[in-house]
């Protein structure tokens, strides 16, 4: 075996490289910049890097390459779209992260200790969240463009590890936050093990770790498909865990609730894009010809996921948990895009992911605003009468909820329509029916929240709406505009997606 000198196409990899570079600088900033300057420096670096990466993504949007990193990554239209989505979502999430109110002053201090109190008083901040965010985002960018199992696994861990950490950094209810970090971590590692085990069997089946190799094996396989199926199943466990599909969803309500809300927003939105991006790529390219084997499996999971998510969400009393279950339901809807296995399905999934991600960040941004003296108020009962107290905030939240519910003239509707029609087109009618019915169930709890906010009299318990910081309002407004714009005039975005969304292999 001769050694071939590696050649990396830095232009195509630049978005990730920019972020990694910025992350490294951030780490150095932690070490060398004075405490007072750190937050603003970190924020600027992070935002700058994200924007720069976005610009870079835009510039390479028409590139296609199988060899950008020695075959480890694929740059193509979907890759660019996913990366752009992730970056946009990350940018508005960082706006939320910049609000220090959500993060503990000193992660190492014991909850309730003097040290913690002093840290809070001294205005200490865990500015490490910025490099962690950057690492996570670069992992997310890498995840959907990976083209072999190794890179996929590395990217998976790269996006997960920072999130595990960030989940535990909440300022209030720190025990719960740490608990969520623990749960997220243990279950995440558990599912990675499945992922890896599946990867091993795929490797065994195809004698290759690249997606192309697996695809070739699937197309022209000699033996039976046991290893392939084991591989697909276990790999799927890992991926389905990340997207939060039933029965691999259990972490998400707890983690969504326990994490600092900006982190929840970030991981709910961006992780979903990344995970579905990877899933779409691997199912659409490597496993496409084994469709017979996994379509039934995903169909069942999708249906169960939608129905379960919608049903359980009805019974929730906490807004973050409710949104978590709603995100589970949406994972089910998104799976229909995977099942569709056609170009329409890919386009629809990308659109849906983007629309859903933006609305999710917007929704959680609103959650960060509703507070009392002890921090965020997530108990739904205390959201009563929000529409009276702060009509704009409540209206915005209602708008996001309506988008989640898929009411026309919101982005959610276009997403749902396109994804269901793609699935229908591929003959997956049962999923469409289930999707439609569970949408009806889902509508029930979205509407319930709207009722709470608008049609119930407020309780005077000190719950109030914080005047949003400039950055938070920016992200809410941006999310709102996108949600409405994609609902009313989705044509430009849809055109862009349909121009670009073709996997190369």
């Amino acid at each position, binding site marked *: 075996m001769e050694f071939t000198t590696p050649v990396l196409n830095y232009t195509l990899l630049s978005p990730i490289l920019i972020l990694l570079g910025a992350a490294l600088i951030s780490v150095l900033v932690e070490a060398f910049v004075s405490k007072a300057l750190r937050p603003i420096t970190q924020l600027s670096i992070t935002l700058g890097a994200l924007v720069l990466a976005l610009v870079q993504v835009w510039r390479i949007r028409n590139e296609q390459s199988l060899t950008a990193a020695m075959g480890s990554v694929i740059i193509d239209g979907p890759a660019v779209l996913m990366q752009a989505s992730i970056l946009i979502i990350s940018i508005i999430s960082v706006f939320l992260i910049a609000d220090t109110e959500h993060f503990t002053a000193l992660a190492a201090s014991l909850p309730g200790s003097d040290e913690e109190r002093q840290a809070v008083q001294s205005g200490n901040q865990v500015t490490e969240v910025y490099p962690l965010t950057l690492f996570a985002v670069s992992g997310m960018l890498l995840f959907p463009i990976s083209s072999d199992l190794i890179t996929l696994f590395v990217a998976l861990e790269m996006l997960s590890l920072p999130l595990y950490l960030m989940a535990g950094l909440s300022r209030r209810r720190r025990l719960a936050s740490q608990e969520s970090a623990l749960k997220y971590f243990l279950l995440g590692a558990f599912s990675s093990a499945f992922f890896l085990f599946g990867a091993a069997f795929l490797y065994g089946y195809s004698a290759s770790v690249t997606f192309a190799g697996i695809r070739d094996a699937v197309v022209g396989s000699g033996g039976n498909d046991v290893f392939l199926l*084991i591989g697909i199943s276990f790999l799927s466990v890992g991926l389905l865990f990340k997207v939060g599909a039933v029965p691999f969803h259990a972490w998400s309500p707890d983690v969504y609730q326990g994490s600092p809300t900006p982190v929840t927003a970030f991981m709910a939105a961006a992780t979903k894009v990344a995970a579905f991006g990877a899933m779409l790529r691997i199912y659409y390219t490597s496993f496409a010809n084994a469709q017979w084997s996994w379509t039934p499996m995903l169909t069942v999971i999708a249906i169960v996921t939608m129905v379960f998510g919608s049903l359980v*969400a009805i019974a929730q009393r906490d807004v973050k948990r409710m949104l978590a279950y709603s995100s589970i339901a949406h994972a089910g809807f998104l799976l229909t895009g995977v099942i569709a296995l056609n170009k329409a399905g890919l386009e629809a999934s990308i659109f849906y992911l983007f629309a859903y991600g933006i609305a999710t960040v917007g929704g959680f941004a609103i959650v960060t605003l509703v507070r009392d003296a002890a921090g965020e108020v997530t108990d739904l009962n205390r959201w009563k009468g929000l529409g009276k107290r702060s009509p704009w905030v409540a209206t915005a939240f209602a708008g996001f909820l309506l988008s989640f519910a898929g009411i026309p003239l919101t982005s959610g509707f276009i997403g749902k329509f396109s994804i269901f029609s793609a699935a229908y087109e591929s003959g997956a009618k049962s999923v469409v029916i289930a999707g439609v019915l569970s949408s009806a169930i889902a509508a029930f709890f979205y509407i319930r929240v709207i009722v709470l906010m608008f049609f119930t009299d407020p309780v005077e318990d000190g719950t109030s709406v914080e005047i949003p910081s400039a950055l938070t309002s920016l992200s809410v407004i941006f999310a709102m505009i996108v949600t409405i714009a994609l609902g009313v005039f989705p044509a430009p975005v849809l055109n862009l997606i349909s121009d670009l969304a073709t996997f190369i292999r």
Partner: protein
Amino acid sequence: MTTSNSLVYLIALPLLGATILLLAGRRADKWGHLLGTLMSASSFGVGLYQLSQMLSRSNEARPVTQKLFEWISVGTFNVDAGLLLDQLSICFVLLITGVGTLIHIYSISYMSHDHDRRRFFAYLNLFIAAMLLLVLGNSYLNLYVGWEGVGLASYLLIGFWNQKPAYATASKKAFVMNRIGDMGLSFAIMIAFATIGTVSFEGIKEHAHHTSTGALTAIGIMLLVAATGKSAQFPLQAWLGDAMAGPTPVSALIHAATMVTAGVYLITRSNFIFDAAPTAQLLVVIVGAITLLFGALIGTAKDDIKKALAASTMSQIGYMILGAGLGPVGYAFAIMHLLTHGFFKAGMFLGAGSVMHGMNDEVNMRKYGALRKFMPITFVTFGLGYLAILGVPPFAGFYSKDMIIETAFNSGGTKGIILGVVTLLGAGITAFYMTRVMILTFTGKSRWDAEAHPHESPILMWLPMAILAVGSVSSGFLLSRGDALVNWLAPLFEHHGEHEELLAPIVVSGLALAMVAIGVAVAFLKYSRQEVAAVAPENVSVFTKIARQDLMQDSFNEAVFMRPGQLLTSALVKTDEHVIDGAVRGVAQLALGSGSVLRGVQSGFVRSYAALILIGAALLIAAIWVVI
């Protein structure tokens, strides 16, 4: 056929009156009654003008039509708002506007103390307009508009004093029972359209001869249903007694002279259908016969003067219906009886109104007595009406009723005998109860309450009574002289072969008079020879008790329709609430409940989450195991 542009004025004038009176409100209180009367009178004038025009034309050219506008036109369903005035309608037009005008005049005085007299006149005008539309419409659908229009007017007038709950209920009852009849008319129209393709009189008449008997029978029966509703015939007769809740002029006009006879008009108008549908015709006869006796029997037991008269009306219309059911021969006689009845019954009602007017609105005949002296004019006019209804020659009833009895006998076979006997029996009972009314009201000893001060009515009231009395005396003779009416109407009806006479006319008249004599005698014995109790005695025969309760008609309706209906309604309300909405709420509860149950999966223990993942993976493996 001639066209005319002036037919519409017949209807338009009273309608205009009603509209003005209703819209003007209290502003019109001062002159409202005058306008109402004027409008009615003008309509009568137009009617007379039309009659004169008609008389000047030959038989064939007499019917006049006027197309107002295209009313409903969808596909082949084309109905114009069109009017038809022919020999039949003109009779009605004159009766309606003529008697109507008289009653308007009467009401000016009768209602003078009522706060809402203007409204009363508005309703009367509305009624006149609707009734005219009923008889002038050139298709069943146009007729239907008038048909329900008079129902509305009747509803409004019966419930004129609706502040009394019982009166309000009476009006509602009348409307609803009429609606049941109206349904029949709807059916008739639908069947006609479905089978013949048109709903105009002319069109159906044209096609009737090549339409199947079955279809025509169905139409006929449905028309009969309509007639029973409007004309208070068995089995839809129950509302008429309660309808006496309305002011007496209303009873005279609507519930004696005009509206209740609409059924007779309908059957006569539909002669071309009934002639071709013997079964339907037979049913008509049967209904007429039953009602004739039914009404008469009720009449024997009523102490309320208006209700007694109402029962009599029911019975007399039974005669008409029976007559109309006797085919081509009977139509003209039915109409004749209708016209004479219009005079004498209206007169008697007005008389009753006059009595009530003088007796503080007391209606119980047992509290009358000896009024002859105090109300001589009323007594005389009423008496003339009495003689007319009894069929004493030469009063009006003699001509018209005898004709019907005669026709009944002559209808042939067993049917003829049965009908003849029934009609004779009816005549006898009529004599009995009318005599009873006369005796209880005008003769004997006074049984008034202390505060009653009987007095004769003012001229505005007795004048119409007098005019009607004249009609009661003379109309029969005039109409039957030289078969005037029969010949007048003949062009409308199919020619018929002469029937074999079962009994000579003179024999029939003799029998009828004998029956009347018996009836009068019995009544005389029972009420003139004995003291009449001021309070209705309780120890009476079962028959009397039943008759007092209108032969259990209300109890029957209540038990068979109302109670089950109410039960059904409340059952359905409960069903809706608990079963249907319950199912909906159940689904919601199910979703909520299953949400709560599934929520339990989220136990908070990371190990159980891991177990869930493990189970999931195991299931996937199991699935593979099954597939491979």
